[in-house]
């Protein structure tokens, strides 16, 4: 084989391997090749590292580095940011490698400050792509300067919001959420960072994806390590930082010492400030209770059910209950399997890093009319699904190994309960979707898909189609958001990664008279 052919052969296998598309022959060939051929093994390792480095490099570079190409050589490769972050797991805390301040990055941050309003990604000037990095989720009594953004509106990278008064909640694509109180000037900088020029915000970064969420202020920034924190920025640029829970790192920027700027770690209850102009970080001791109460009140005010997004409509009945349906259950799966639900990778070239579990269902009996679909929710890690709009779609599949929906047989819209999280917490973990009679054909394979409508891409998927052994069951498709740029929600929100075997689905229906 020529070197080109050798490259191609191993590259093909690496790509298909990562896409879970290896042929049975390759499944045999690759391990023995790696075991017996030292050169092939080294080539394999190089190619894997290249894939990984590219994904980390590009994921970071386009947003963090803008056009500072001259600084990229050093900073990109070596500052691939890393950190420790504390993640709440059922019953335990886990430290997680995450985005964090690295030596080079601090120097580097000073370089790019202030961020340009709109940054160019490395590409021709004529075709600028501005990615969506966040979404305006809810507002309470919000008055805006200029054109008012609508709840549900996608916020592009670099979008600046000027909130005159009231509250606005912004959710970043990487999962962090910010409640802004007017008057405030705030920029959605990247999928995992924002810039507060003036005003006050409370940030919640409790999902795994949101680790390393950063809020920059004119002269200092705060980086979360899995937490809730608040930032107040005064007119003159001086900033105060408060930690409501978890741990953050505050860095003073623009104070002259770019190599090793002043930094301070704050844990729960602690506060610190950076003066106008930057410089020394002053510890403020503990957050006073009055302030804590204010922040809590803000969070509660915006979380109230009356503030559901105005732009959504839906009429599909959705209800929560504490027990599974027992009557008219036509098809169900109560997994006693105990193993990992089947997963499949998307076909080659599609979004990297999906973690999917999916199943379809096969209809045996003739004349089945579907009335409801019930899904058991394992865990809901936060209340971000409360009052959100969803779409339920039922579609046909060629067979149990088919991935692509052929034809929709039903599409229904609805709004998730206002108190969904509270209901789940209270033990009402079954969510039932009423659907207008849908007649299903016998011996036809179907799948269903639940899509969280308010995001810019379909990102909340329940039950899809599969090539798994569970051909007769109905199941869940869960997706986990990959590295920067992917638009998939955390899988654990719906199914609980810790107990992936516990999938429960119920289809209730009746038999049509004809």
């Amino acid at each position, binding site marked *: 084989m020529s070197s080109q052919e050798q490259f191609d052969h191993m590259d093909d296998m690496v790509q298909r391997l*990562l896409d879970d598309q290896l042929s049975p022959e390759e499944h045999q060939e690759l391990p023995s090749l790696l075991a017996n051929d030292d050169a092939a093994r080294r080539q394999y390792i190089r190619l894997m590292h290249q894939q990984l480095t590219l994904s980390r*490099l590009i994921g970071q570079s386009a947003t963090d580095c803008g056009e500072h190409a001259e600084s990229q050589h050093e900073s990109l490769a070596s500052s691939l940011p890393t950190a*420790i972050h504390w993640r709440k797991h059922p019953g335990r805390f886990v430290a997680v490698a995450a985005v964090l301040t690295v030596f080079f990055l601090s120097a580097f941050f000073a370089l790019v400050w202030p961020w340009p309003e709109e940054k160019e990604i490395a*590409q021709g000037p004529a075709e600028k792509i501005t990615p969506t990095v966040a979404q305006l989720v809810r507002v309470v009594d919000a008055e805006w300067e200029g054109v008012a953004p609508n709840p549900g509106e996608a916020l592009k990278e670099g979008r600046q919001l000027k909130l005159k008064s009231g509250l606005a909640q912004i959710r970043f694509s990487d999962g962090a959420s910010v409640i802004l109180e007017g008057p405030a000037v705030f920029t959605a900088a990247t999928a995992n960072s924002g810039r507060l020029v003036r005003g006050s915000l409370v940030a919640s970064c409790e999902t795994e994806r949101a680790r390393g969420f950063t809020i920059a202020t004119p002269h200092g920034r705060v980086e979360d390590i899995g937490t809730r924190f608040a930032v107040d920025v005064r007119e003159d640029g001086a900033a105060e930082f408060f930690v409501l829970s978890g741990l953050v790192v505050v860095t003073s920027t623009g104070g002259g010492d770019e190599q090793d700027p002043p930094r301070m*770690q704050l844990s729960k209850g602690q506060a610190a400030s950076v003066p106008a102009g930057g410089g020394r970080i002053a510890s403020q001791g503990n957050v006073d209770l009055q302030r804590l109460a204010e922040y809590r009140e803000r969070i509660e005010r915006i979380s109230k059910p009356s503030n559901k997004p105005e732009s959504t409509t839906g009429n599909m009945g959705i209800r929560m209950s504490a027990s599974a349906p027992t009557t008219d259950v036509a098809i169900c799966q109560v997994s006693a399997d105990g*193993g*990992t639900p089947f997963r499949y990778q998307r076909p080659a070239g599609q979004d990297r890093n999906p973690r999917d579990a999916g199943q379809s269902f096969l209809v045996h009996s003739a004349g089945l009319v579907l009335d409801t679909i019930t899904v058991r929710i394992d865990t809901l890690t936060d209340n971000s699904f409360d009052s959100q709009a969803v779409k339920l779609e039922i579609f046909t599949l060629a067979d149990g190994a088919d991935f692509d929906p052929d034809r929709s047989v039903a599409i229904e819209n609805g709004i998730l309960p206002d108190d969904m999280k509270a209901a789940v917490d209270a033990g009402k973990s079954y969510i039932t979707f009423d659907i207008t009679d849908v007649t299903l054909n016998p011996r036809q394979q179907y799948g269903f898909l639940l899509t969280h409508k308010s995001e810019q891409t379909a990102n909340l998927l329940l039950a899809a189609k599969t090539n798994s052994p569970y051909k007769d069951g109905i199941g869940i498709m869960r997706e986990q958001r990959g590295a920067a740029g992917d638009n998939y929600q955390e899988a654990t929100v719906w199914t609980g990664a810790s107990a992936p075997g516990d999938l429960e689905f119920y289809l209730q229906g009746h038999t049509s008279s004809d």
Partner: protein
Amino acid sequence: MSDQSQVNEFLRIHARHEARLHGFILSLLPNWSDAEEVLQETATILWSKYDSFKPGTSYFAWACQIARFEVSRYLRRQHRSRMIFNENVLDMIAQSSESMDDELFARQQALADCVEKLSDKDRRLVVLRYHEGLKAEGIARQIGRSVHAVYKAMKRIRRLLFDCVSGTLAREGFAE
């Protein structure tokens, strides 16, 4: 928990090695999200065992050994279908990776430069793929070409980058 300076020290040293460690795990566990999960678990262990790390020895080698163990532990917890390589192959990949530490670090450094050298058109594809996270279909739509053409172009770019990195290393006197 330990004092802050130790946290900082750990974070700093771990940051320097994390990308290669991530690559190491991905080569043992060739699935993006599995690898990320194990990376996180490994980081937890590394931090909890950081007291036992001997300064002056190779952090990468130390981390790889722990990661190697975590990969096995992860595989045992998962469905058998996740298992692509047997323990013997995993060991061989791990040994080779550790011995390639310097080379992999150099490759990582060189790749940033090589991405910079791509034509605007190619770099745009790379950004769409890796930054925007677009699928081949999405990229094809975005740039108005066929999906097949996108696959082909991505392959060409991977090859170009690989050769560019190898060239840089050869100039720097690395023997592959």
